[in-house]
């Protein structure tokens, strides 16, 4: 990404002998700017904590999500911090399990949509002309397909396992990424270094993979991060309509939808999984905001 990664210390000038000037790599600059964004750093820590809690805590917790305990519909207590449902499931264990599933789904969506969208957008923007037209019309078509209708139809036709739900959502979300990447690549391809590379005999593949995609990485990372948050919300919405993850497996959206009828009698079933969704999506959105500022400092203007 950067050609001066080896941060060579400059000889201190005589006037400012005390001030050490060091050249920083691009990655270092991004990291420093990100660390200055307090909300983003706190959110990153929070998100890491939730992930750790779900994956490690879920394995260590004394109840499994499928365990049926003798305590039926008890409110939160020391033994059951989030209470239990009307069958005796420990809600804390279920929320941890649901969090695992929801995060797995969201990350898989972001990975697939990010990968396909990046390649699609990069090729479309680089080749332009008829290739571009055809590829972008296909992306447009995908954008017109209503997610709810497609997901509804496909998940009903199959068993609704979690990776299939992720696949369906990713199959529609990549088009957003491809539009962003195409826009960036369209301007990058006119840059002098691309021209220089081509003059040196670089192939199209080399230019796309070594120059265009690495330089578009900033917007790609930002958009994919925000996609993770959006994916969590989409998954929960689908599960709420009964079109996402199916029992006996569980996800945060499914937990909330199951608690929908019990809000006034067993409110803990409804509020805890919902709060987890909000915390996860909120922290990811703030991380995305921090990354945007870090990659593109010109956007964050301070008025004169």
């Amino acid at each position, binding site marked *: 990404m950067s050609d001066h990664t080896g941060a060579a210390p400059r000889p201190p000038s005589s006037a400012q002998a005390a001030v050490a000037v060091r050249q920083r790599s691009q990655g270092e600059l991004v990291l420093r700017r990100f660390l200055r964004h307090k909300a983003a750093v706190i959110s990153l820590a929070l998100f890491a904590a939730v992930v750790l809690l779900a994956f490690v805590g879920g394995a260590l917790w004394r109840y499994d999500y499928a365990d049926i305990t003798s305590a039926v519909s008890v409110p939160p207590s020391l033994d059951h911090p989030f209470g239990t449902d009307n069958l005796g499931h420990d809600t804390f264990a279920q929320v941890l399990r649901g969090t695992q599933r929801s995060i797995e789904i969201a990350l898989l969506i972001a990975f697939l949509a990010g990968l396909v969208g990046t390649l699609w957008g990069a090729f479309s923007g680089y080749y332009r002309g008829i290739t571009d037209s055809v590829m972008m019309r296909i992306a447009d078509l995908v954008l017109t397909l209503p997610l709810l*209708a497609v997901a509804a139809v496909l998940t009903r036709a199959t068993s609704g396992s979690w990776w299939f739900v992720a696949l369906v959502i990713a199959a529609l979300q990549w088009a957003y990424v491809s539009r962003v990447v195409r826009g960036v690549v369209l301007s990058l391809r006119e840059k002098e270094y691309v021209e220089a590379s081509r003059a040196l005999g670089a192939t199209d593949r080399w230019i796309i993979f070594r120059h265009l995609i690495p330089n578009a990485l900033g917007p790609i990372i930002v958009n994919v991060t925000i996609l993770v948050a959006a994916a969590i919300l989409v998954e929960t919405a689908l599960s709420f309509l009964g079109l996402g993850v199916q029992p006996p497996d569980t996800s945060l959206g499914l937990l909330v939808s199951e608690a929908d009828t019990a809000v006034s009698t067993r409110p803990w079933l409804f509020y805890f999984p919902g709060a987890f969704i909000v915390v996860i999506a909120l922290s990811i959105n703030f991380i995305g905001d921090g990354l945007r500022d870090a990659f593109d400092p010109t956007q964050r203007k301070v008025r004169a």
Partner: protein
Amino acid sequence: MVAYTLRRLLIAIPVIVASTFTVFLLVTMAGDPLANLKGRNPPPSPQVIAVEEQRLHLDEPPLQRYWTWITGVAQGDFGPSVRTNVDIGHEIAVRFGVTVRLIAVAVLLALVLAVVVGVISAVKQYSGIDYGFTFAAFLFLSMPSFWFAVLLKQGGISLNNLIGDQVVYTIGEKSVIVEGGAWAQLADAAGHMVLPTISLALLSFGAWSRFQRASMLDVLNSDYVLFARAKGLSRRRVIVRHALRTALIPMTTVTALDFATLISGAVITETVFQWRGLGEFLVTSVSQRDAYAVLAWLLVVAVAVIVFNLIADLLYALLDPRIRHE
């Protein structure tokens, strides 16, 4: 301008055809729409099933069934529904009114809120107010729509209990029987609308207020605003007369582009508040594998999205004279 509009509408036709065809294939692959009928006990006679198959054109190959639908639509016939008592065209028309009422008021509310909050945020950048508004916007961006809707519903129930009278309604788009004249009718409809509208509006508010803030900051940092201040105009006058007007223009595009999101948001809102609108129509149709009904929904939504985007682009050119559509 007229030529541009016509061209845009003509380009939209193949997109709609491709989109409806894809969804048609998906619904067809999803399963047998007559599964309910065949699973009945005692089982219906083969003749009954054959009649149903003929009525729904299920005895024809898929391509021909799609062709039947699209030629029918061109003549105003939306085709037969799996539910025998439902006329798709009539049903869609009634539900369209219900959903449009919900979306229109929600958009208006969201826009006003977003503009006010975005402008205050931008003018007082990096102040406590700005951070507070930013957090609120991110919070609404991160809330699952149905969770928030159920929260509002609970809030509405507590409010009613507190006042001891039914002020806001949490179920349905209108009461079955309303006593009294036009005023009572209006009050009843309003009481039903409050919570769903707030729920839908706040979801868009998050993104829109962020956008308005960015757009306003852009303008406030531009040279002409600096010049207006240097000329001696008051800060207030510069913000309202010079900056705000320009900063509002990009919002037209954002609102139009988010229209599709609003429609899927309405599906959730209608489900939670049990409105009989387009969203509920879609959910029921999909669960019954009612291909023609799903296509009718898609057609209405697609046309609405296309028309809104077109209006936004035309409006954009009207507001910003630098843009010309040839």
